[in-house]
């Protein structure tokens, strides 16, 4: 089956009426999650995972995927109108997007964000179509050393690119790995750190952990910071961008799409990093960088395209390797496993309806989101007027439903509360939850493969040196953080040499 034939087959799956409805539902929920600050896509996905249990796997993935990329669309609305990122990846959009709104140009900013997201989404889905199948063929040769190297690379990258200190991020990654060892030993099946509780036999449930860290903690932080009083007085005005706006946005959108797509492919890469990188590049290549921060439309077009492209290309590692690169993809992986679908290089051949159906649904979802976010933007704006004191008990209720119904156990509610408090303290103390959650998810994969690799190589580690892919991945994992330490030192030496030469 060629790519085009496969895509046509995928459209056949995606156009089944229930899949079409679920795609629309995912896009609407995603936009809602994106628009409303205080609920992120990770929390929303975790909350809604139990709802998808009664659906066929392909329908479940279509809906969950729609929530994620829908949130990327919706996040810009809040960022532009009230200067608060609706979801984290829109943080960069607040800089110039809100400035444009203050100058009475909220309409063009919203329009460019939506159009850029649409173009980037379409390019990224095309990229996904062409990159995933060959990568899956390469990944068929992956054995334990490659998986170990990939997990290490992912954790190193995520810690390296995290907002705060690298040591703190690495500490949180180690904490996540540690929590991942609770429960049955994946190799020997021996109980570890369960404190005699049968509920802990399988470790802490992924859904209550994610809902706690990303849902409950967000509510606690919002209540603590009292930023619930949001003043929304901005007028959207004329929606259509001018010819000049469009001309200025074309290249940032294309560059943002490329950057976002590549970042999303990397282990540890995510939509936030893609948006930040795109903004930095747009500013660097601009002939008038002083406009950035003062309402430059390129500062909206680039990052919004990048975060959308990344949110789609990050499906590549999870669908082809079975390795999630962020918390949201980990939830998608969990959803696949709950539905009995084994993620990995064989997925495309074993479940073509799931792979190609999801890809086709992304094309459809992108078109739906353009309609939801452009002509219907006013509808979402009304939601921003819902006071937080009515909203937070509802979000909490969804957290409870998500955490409880996945296993029908009150123990999971206590896990959710515990991780909610942990997430709250982490955020107040300046630690990021993302490395912790990714490490927590990848921990069992790392342990299983590391132990297997050591047994096979008789404890010599030679397997890592003899296998080129594993070696390359490990070298990147070591060299990139090392370069960041060495580069400033070199720059300092160079400046000293230059000064003395002068």
């Amino acid at each position, binding site marked *: 089956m060629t790519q085009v034939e496969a895509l046509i087959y995928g459209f056949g799956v995606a156009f089944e009426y229930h899949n079409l409805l679920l795609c629309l539902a995912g896009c609407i929920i995603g936009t809602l999650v994106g628009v409303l600050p205080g609920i992120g896509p990770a929390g929303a996905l975790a909350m809604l995972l139990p709802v998808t249990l009664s659906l066929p796997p392909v329908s479940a993935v279509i809906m969950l995927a729609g929530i994620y990329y829908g949130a990327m669309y919706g996040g810009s609305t809040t960022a532009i109108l009230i200067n608060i990122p609706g979801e984290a990846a829109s943080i960069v959009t607040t800089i110039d997007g809100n400035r444009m709104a203050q100058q009475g140009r909220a309409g063009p900013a919203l329009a460019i964000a939506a159009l850029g997201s649409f173009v980037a989404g379409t390019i990224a889905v095309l990229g996904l179509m062409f990159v995933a199948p060959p990568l899956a063929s390469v990944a068929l040769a992956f054995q334990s050393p490659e998986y170990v190297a990939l997990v290490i690379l992912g954790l190193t990258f995520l810690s390296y690119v995290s907002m705060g200190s690298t040591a703190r991020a690495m500490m949180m990654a180690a904490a996540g790995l540690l929590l991942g060892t609770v429960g049955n030993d994946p190799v020997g099946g021996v109980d570890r750190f369960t404190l005699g509780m049968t509920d802990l036999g399988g470790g802490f449930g992924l859904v209550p952990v994610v809902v706690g860290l990303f849902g409950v903690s967000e509510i606690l932080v919002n209540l603590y910071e009292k930023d619930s009083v949001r003043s929304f007085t901005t007028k959207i005005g004329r929606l259509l961008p001018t010819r000049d706006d469009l001309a200025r946005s074309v290249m940032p959108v294309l560059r943002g799409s490329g950057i976002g797509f590549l970042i999303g492919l990397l282990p540890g890469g995510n939509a936030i990093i893609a948006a930040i990188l795109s903004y930095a590049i747009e500013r660097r290549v601009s002939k008038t960088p002083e406009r950035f921060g003062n309402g430059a439309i390129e500062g909206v077009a680039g990052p919004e395209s990048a975060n959308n492209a990344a949110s789609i290309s990050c499906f590549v590692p999870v669908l082809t390797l079975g390795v999630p690169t962020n918390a949201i993809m980990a939830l998608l992986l969990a959803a696949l496993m709950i539905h009995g679908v084994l993620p990995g290089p064989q997925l495309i051949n074993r479940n073509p309806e799931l792979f190609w159906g999801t890809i086709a649904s992304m094309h459809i979802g992108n078109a739906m989101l353009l309609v939801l976010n452009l002509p219907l933007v006013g509808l979402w704006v009304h939601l921003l007027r819902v006071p937080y004191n009515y909203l937070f008990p509802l979000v909490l209720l969804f957290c409870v439903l998500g955490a409880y119904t996945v296993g029908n156990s009150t123990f999971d509610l*206590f896990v959710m509360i515990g991780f909610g408090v942990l997430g709250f303290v982490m955020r107040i103390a300046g630690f990021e939850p993302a490395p912790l959650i990714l490490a927590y998810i990848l921990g069992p994969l790392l342990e299983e493969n590391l132990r297997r690799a050591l047994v096979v190589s008789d404890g010599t580690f030679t397997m890592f040196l003899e296998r080129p892919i594993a070696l390359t991945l490990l070298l990147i994992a070591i060299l990139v953080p090392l370069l960041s330490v060495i580069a400033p030192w070199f720059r300092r030496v160079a400046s000293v040499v230059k000064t003395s030469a002068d």
Partner: protein
Amino acid sequence: MSVRALSLAFIALWLMLGLYFMLQGLELQLGSISSPGTGFMPFLIGVVLIGFGIMSAIPLLVPAPASEPERLPIQRLRDPAIVVVSMIAYSLALERIGFIASTGVLIVFLTWFVGRTTFLRAAIAGVLATLVCYVVFGLLLGVRLP
């Protein structure tokens, strides 16, 4: 309490956990490098966690410049604390008194007491939210609710 003190306490907590997992790893059997045992990973990760924990703590222990340390306004913890206690009470009550009663009480209480709305508005919001969730999740989507 300052943010610095909270960060240090948080790091100390993880250092203790790292140490505990390391010691437990030894007890669970490390195995050998060619045949790692059940305790191998917890031990290894415990060591890594302690290492990065110390690296994270060092900048906080270096004497700070004369500037005033960032304080944590303790009084603002009131609302998050009430939410956490309510959630614990809710978790204990859920299977005893059922979804509708426990959820209704939780939403009304939080909207009224933490959200500081009038009791009547909170009651309307609580009853509506509970019933809509029950109908959508419990009846339409077939999610099992106690």
